């Protein structure tokens, strides 16, 4: 039996199955569909009945409209513009070129409730809008809490579109003025060619107008996702539009109601109270912003103390504290800045460089207890980096190098700077010889010509998949000034990304003080929702929570250590003996140490620049006597960096 046999039988089977279905009303005609659409629309809810008088008025207007409309309808039935109204009920009205309603359709359940058994076809747009908005008011869809109306007009003719929008604004605002309701009205133009918006509308079952609004919000703020925004009401979207000052393809008049939410003042007070009680902080100056975050409307209260910038996230509806974070602020020490930015060029001129035409990049920075300008500029195809002390104008040359290989205009001929320099090729040859690499193994080469330590020199970086070699060669005589070899970070990082993709970096580190502690840092991105809020009041897990909940399984999953057992309680990893106290996590069959978290001690959490939580440093105890003294003297000893032997299998 082949695939095509099966396909053939299946096709016959499916056809037979389909033939067994009886299509309802096989002799259907088009008019039946119209009836069905009306039948499919549920009757309006009971709240409406209590406002009998208003209904009668509306009906009277409508009836009149219907009779007039029916007459016109015969004359012209072609749709020239489509108007969609979103409050939460979404209703779409198709108009002909005389702005007479040709067709009305509900786009969601509330919209069906609004239309009910009303017949709006044939009325003019004024009466139709009047009726729809009135019903929305009466049924509590437009209230002082939810007062935003989104009107989207689809008409290819620019002028007609604009006129219709103006007309609609005046209809709605005059109507609402009479009702004493303040309202935010967004009118926007919908492009029929906007495939993205149509796709979004189809995907989430929302109106094209709402889809377009969501797209303009998303393009304004990359933190928003269309999916999350699709669930928001028009009022919430309008608030976000107002807050973000996002550009829309139309106009926004009035302001959306914030009565659903606690006031900014209340949010501020909540934040202050929380900081005082939970963190012992006393704040004075603050900024507050209204935003949408993690499917909630929130206030962000941010403020600065001397050393940190803090933020508190307060839920806008309930006033709950949803998050807290801090980030360090780098302050410049308070010294007299005597040198002004405009003096810098003068200082450079004194160095014998005509500074007038130079393009300078100047930054004021804190450097070694003083304040200095870091000045960068390019002169004679060389990149200069100077540090000018802001108090006394003292100049220090940090770097002076060829502009790198990216700029094709940089000459590799340095004879104007130096008599008889060795060429790049010669330098590279020497470097490769020194590194003992074969040319096939080299994955990357970088050459820089620079002035450093009073000498012109080539700095050559060679990489293979395991190591990175940095060889510095004197450009005058070709002597090798410096040679370093380290693990190639690129490959090592990839190797340790492991299976879950959460490991960001992994390093073993010797403490410089030589205390006998070896630390490995592991910094990784928070794993949502694991790094959610423990009790809602603190924005991160405590160390203890974290270590008991996630470390064991996480370490096991990722198998961070693969080492050889030397003696009971000791393990060797890349020639380094590590003592571990609990051997229960050592897998003797696999001869692997899976987990050493029992010996970890807490250090400061690692944070992102914005203060958000990132991870913890761990320290791991090592017996000092088992490995050479040199491991204790450097920062990141290259011998301590750990690469699993089977690293290739991870990438």
């Amino acid at each position: 039996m082949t695939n095509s046999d099966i396909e053939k039988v299946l096709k016959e089977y499916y056809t037979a199955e389909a033939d067994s279905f009886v299509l309802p009303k096989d002799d259907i005609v088009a008019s039946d569909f119209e009836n069905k659409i009306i039948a499919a629309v549920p009757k309006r809810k009971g709240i409406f009945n209590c406002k009998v008088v208003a209904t009668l008025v509306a009906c009277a207007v409508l009836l009149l409209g219907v009779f007039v409309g029916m007459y016109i309808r015969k004359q012209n039935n072609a749709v020239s513009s489509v108007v969609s109204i979103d409050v939460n009920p979404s209703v779409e009205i198709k108009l002909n070129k005389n702005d007479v309603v040709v067709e009305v359709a509900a786009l969601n359940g509330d919209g069906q409730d609004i239309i009910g058994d009303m017949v709006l076809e044939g009325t003019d747009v004024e009466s139709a809008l009047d009726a729809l908005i009135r019903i929305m008011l009466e049924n509590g869809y437009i209230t002082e809490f939810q007062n935003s109306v989104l009107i989207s007009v689809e008409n290819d003719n620019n002028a007609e579109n604009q006129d219709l929008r103006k007309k609609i604004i005046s209809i709605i605002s005059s109507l609402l003025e009479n009702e004493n309701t303040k309202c935010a009205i967004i009118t926007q133009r919908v492009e029929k060619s906007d495939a993205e918006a149509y796709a979004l509308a189809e995907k989430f079952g929302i109106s094209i107008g709402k889809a377009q609004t969501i797209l303009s919000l998303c393009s304004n703020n990359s933190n928003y996702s269309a999916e999350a925004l699709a669930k928001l009401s028009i009022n919430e979207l309008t608030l976000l539009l107002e807050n973000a000052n996002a550009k829309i393809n139309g106009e926004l008049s009035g302001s959306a109601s914030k009565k659903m939410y606690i006031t900014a003042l209340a949010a501020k007070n909540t934040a202050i109270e929380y900081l005082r009680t939970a963190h012992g902080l006393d704040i004075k100056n603050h900024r507050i912003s209204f935003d949408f975050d993690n499917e909630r409307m929130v206030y962000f209260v941010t403020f600065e103390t001397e050393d940190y910038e803090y933020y508190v996230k307060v839920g806008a509806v309930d006033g709950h504290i949803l998050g807290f974070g801090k980030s360090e602020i780098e302050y410049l020490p308070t010294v007299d800045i005597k040198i002004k930015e405009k003096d810098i060029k003068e200082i450079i001129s004194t160095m014998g460089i005509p500074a007038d035409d130079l393009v300078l990049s100047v930054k004021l920075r804190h450097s070694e207890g003083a304040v200095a300008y870091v000045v960068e500029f390019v002169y004679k195809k060389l990149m200069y980096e100077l540090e000018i002390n802001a108090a006394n104008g003292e100049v220090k040359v940090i770097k002076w190098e060829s502009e790198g290989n990216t700029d094709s205009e940089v000459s590799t001929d340095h004879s104007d700077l130096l008599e008889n320099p060795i060429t790049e090729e010669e330098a590279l040859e020497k470097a490769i010889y020194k590194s003992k690499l074969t040319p096939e193994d080299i994955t990357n080469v970088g050459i820089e010509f620079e002035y450093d330590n009073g000498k012109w020199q080539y700095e050559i970086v060679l990489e293979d998949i395991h190591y990175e070699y940095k060889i510095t060669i004197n450009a005058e005589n070709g002597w090798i000034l410096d040679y370093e070899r380290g693990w190639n970070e690129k490959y090592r990082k990839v190797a340790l990304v492991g299976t879950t993709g959460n490991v960001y970096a992994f390093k073993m580190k010797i403490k410089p003080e030589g205390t006998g502690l070896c630390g490995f840092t592991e910094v990784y991105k928070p794993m949502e929702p694991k790094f959610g809020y423990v009790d809602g009041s603190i924005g991160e897990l405590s160390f203890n929570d974290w270590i008991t909940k996630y470390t064991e399984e996480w370490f096991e999953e990722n198998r961070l250590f693969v080492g050889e057992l030397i003696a009971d309680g000791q393990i060797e990893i890349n020639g380094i003996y590590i003592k571990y106290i609990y051997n229960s996590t050592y897998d003797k069959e696999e001869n692997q140490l899976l987990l050493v978290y029992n010996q970890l001690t807490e250090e400061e959490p690692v944070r992102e620049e914005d203060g958000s939580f990132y991870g913890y440093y761990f320290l791991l105890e090592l017996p000092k006597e088992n490995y050479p003294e040199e491991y204790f003297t450097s920062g990141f000893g290259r011998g301590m960096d750990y690469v699993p032997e089977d690293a290739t299998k991870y990438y």
Partner: protein
Amino acid sequence: MILFWNFTDPCDIAITEVARGNKNALELVYREYGRMIISVAYQITGNLCDAEDVLQDTMIRILRLSHTYKKGTNPKAWVLKITKNSAVDKINSKKHALSFEEITEQEKSQFAFEPETDEFILIRDALKVLSREEQLIVKLRIYADLSHSEIANMIGANTASVRKKYQRALEKLKAYCEGGR
């Protein structure tokens, strides 16, 4: 030129006519695709009664969404995507009222199509081996004649995985049929 006309699905024109306000054109769409819609809806909802509701809902949605149809694309894929959305909405609306177990229990008791020949009975039993998703993919590929990428777009998966699932489903069916003989 004549060949070209033969390949064009009449519903392509019909749906664009509907978008222009010609509701009679919807009748053509109904006649052409009605059975297919109900068949696919039945596959998704597993219940003939719901499938009929979905058919009606789909026709209403076609009427409303006709302006989003791009002339010259595959109208069948477009209609079936609407069908799928409508059917999923139907299931979701029922979930609020009944728990999932209750629904499946009810649905099992209502079976519509009773095949008569041995070959069809074998196929019917073989299809039960497949997961619901696999059944849907096979039906869309063979009966509705959609391409893998159209199916992927419809059910929100990527083309490669649809192709793989389809191949695997066929292998399963083949294995069942050969084992059964």
